[in-house]
């Protein structure tokens, strides 16, 4: 008799456990990021951010009463691996949405499979090709290099600087930036009097800077690079006594950049997302609470500075969650439409308003011009 009771109790427990489990089927968010390899400095904060917010959202009761489940694979910064893993996410893990593609290469290598399967896909990579031309299922949250170039040239023109030297890195980021800068320069009436490049691992850019200094009428220097290189340019320029106004691209917007430049970053300008200067934003700025909230949550959990890249992941997840809530289901076509209807969504990287012709939804106002003064970022407009 006692045995029967145990069995009944066990059966009841099974039912008790499985009934709500069946009702609250998790929403599966697939992600493929470059957590190792050369692009790890982008992929690592992106993954941490996704994990952090999936946890937070689940503690608050999930989305539509269903918990979120993050299914993540690391592509090791190799686009061909991303292409393999995305098939695993689609076929085997049966994901509802996809966030990821740290680099433009890995995003583009996933596009054919995702478009065929019809899964809402928000990329975290910068390249313009991701959203131009627009692809049905593909969206992105980071600013493009085209926007960075346009924002910088706008600021230059305000200061009356129209004859400039471009110095770009031979990495993917730098070369895409170079292409977009060349195009934007023609559109905005800026003349490139010098167009030099350097390798991402170079430790000395004095030859390029000497060539640039040799151009008689050059008025400003625009550096398009990531990581160490741009800081070395600052140091070399100071050493050579180059007195040109220096602009950098959005890729180096971090405290680290000022530290690496070792005092040579004074007066340098660059476009950056509001996230970086969250505390300095005026109180009426709608982005202030979002950016501050993200900064606080991230630094408390991981004990490291926030980066723009993690901010892109934050925005991607919040856009997706809001779209699922508005769609009222995880039906892929409905979620896709809801993402496309994202309107005035305040994120860490800017205010997103998407449309059938714009799958990024940011304009130039997403970039704030910053200047380094006394070893710190200052908002200049």
């Amino acid at each position, binding site marked *: 008799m006692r045995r029967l009771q145990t069995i009944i109790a066990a059966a009841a427990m099974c039912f008790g456990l499985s009934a709500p489990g069946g009702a609250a089927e998790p929403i599966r968010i697939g992600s493929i990021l470059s957590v*190792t390899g050369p692009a790890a400095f982008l992929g690592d904060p992106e993954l941490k951010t996704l994990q952090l917010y999936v946890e937070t959202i689940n503690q608050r009761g999930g989305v539509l009463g269903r918990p979120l489940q993050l299914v*993540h*694979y*690391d592509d090791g*910064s*190799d*686009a*061909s*691996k991303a*292409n*393999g*893993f995305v*098939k*695993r996410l*689609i*076929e*085997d893990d049966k994901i509802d949405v996809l966030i990821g593609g740290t*680099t*433009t*290469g890995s995003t*583009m*290598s996933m596009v*054919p499979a995702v478009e065929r399967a019809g899964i809402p896909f928000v990329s975290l990579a910068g*390249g313009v*090709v991701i959203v131009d031309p627009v692809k049905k299922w593909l969206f992105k949250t980071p600013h493009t290099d085209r926007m960075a170039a346009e924002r910088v040239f706008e600021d230059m023109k305000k200061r009356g600087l129209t004859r400039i030297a471009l110095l770009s890195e*031979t*990495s*993917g980021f730098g*070369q*895409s930036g170079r*292409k977009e800068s060349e195009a934007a320069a023609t559109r905005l009436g800026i003349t490139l009097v010098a167009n030099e490049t350097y390798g991402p691992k170079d430790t000395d850019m004095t030859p390029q800077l000497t060539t640039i200094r040799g151009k008689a009428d050059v008025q400003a220097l625009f550096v398009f690079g990531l990581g160490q290189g741009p800081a070395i340019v600052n140091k070399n320029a100071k050493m050579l006594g180059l007195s040109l106004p220096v602009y950098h691209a959005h890729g180096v917007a971090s405290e680290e950049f000022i530290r690496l430049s070792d005092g040579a970053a004074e007066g340098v300008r660059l476009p950056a997302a509001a996230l970086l200067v969250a505390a300095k934003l005026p109180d009426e700025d709608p982005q202030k609470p979002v950016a501050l909230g993200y900064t606080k949550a991230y630094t408390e959990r991981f004990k490291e500075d926030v980066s723009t890249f993690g901010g892109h992941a934050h925005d991607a997840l919040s856009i997706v969650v809001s779209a699922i809530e508005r769609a009222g289901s995880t039906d892929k076509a409905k979620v896709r439409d809801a993402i496309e209807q994202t309107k005035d969504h305040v994120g860490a990287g800017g205010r997103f308003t998407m449309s059938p012709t714009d799958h990024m939804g940011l304009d130039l106002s997403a970039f704030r011009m910053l200047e380094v003064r006394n070893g710190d970022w200052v908002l200049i407009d």
Partner: protein
Amino acid sequence: MRRARIGLLVLAAILLALPLALPNAFYFDVVNRMAINAIVVLGLNLLIGFAGQISLGHAGFFGIGAYASAVLTTHFGWSPLAALVAGAVAAALLALAIAPPIFRLRGHYLAMATLGLGIVISIVIRNEATYTGGPDGMPVPPLAAFGFEIGGEREWYWVLAGLLLFSVWACQNLIDSPFGRALRALHGSEVASQVVGVDVTRYKVTIFALSAFFASIVGSLSAHYVGFVTPNCAEFFHSVELLTMVIVGGMASVFGSVIGAVLLTALPQALATIEGWETVAFGVILIVSMIFLPKGLVPTLAAKIGWGR
């Protein structure tokens, strides 16, 4: 030699039966990647295992094929088949041109020279951004020939499975030919083989060009299959991956090449779920297998069960 034929039949039977066991397109994709790697590794094993010459730049030839298919079809409107052949011929010619000076070197110096070759190829691909799309890579149109277009993992499976069978058969025949015997002779001792009349340089150059040809064809196919190429495919790390497959599977072993490719393609997928530790686990497995199976999986196990060679 009957044993080799039995191996071929077993492989054919497995390839025929496999589609019944694969549940969805993702598993087909993994098997297709195994086949792609296996074919390159077969060619590389001819060079490394049989002829005893190392190449640390083999991914460079793979990259030539991949980018020939991508660039010639996209920018110049070539048909995919013509681009594939052009790439393979270019890779073989480059190998032929560069082999005579390179093969004057031996051991570490040969390794350095081939390493340099691979790096030069990947730098060219990275920097000629107007044609190759630079570090971000470029899309590749699907493989279409004679009015047919190969699309989807299942169709590709049959193409790649057929090619794999053919490659295994061709390698077995090559090794049993006078050419193969000469190769093994020069692996044993270059001086001795010269004494018995083997033209050492000619054999080394030919086998180098042949394996470059193999690698380039597979590079082309893989580019069409994946639909996107990035310079990663031509880089040093890919060369090392291929080399590891040769060594883990077993040098101078045809089925060792296949097993090595299968294992090292499957392993990252199997380990992908233990997030953060996959590279560590991968390394440990490699080290352990090298300690306990120093000659590679297939030769060591074959010796254990008394099949010898």
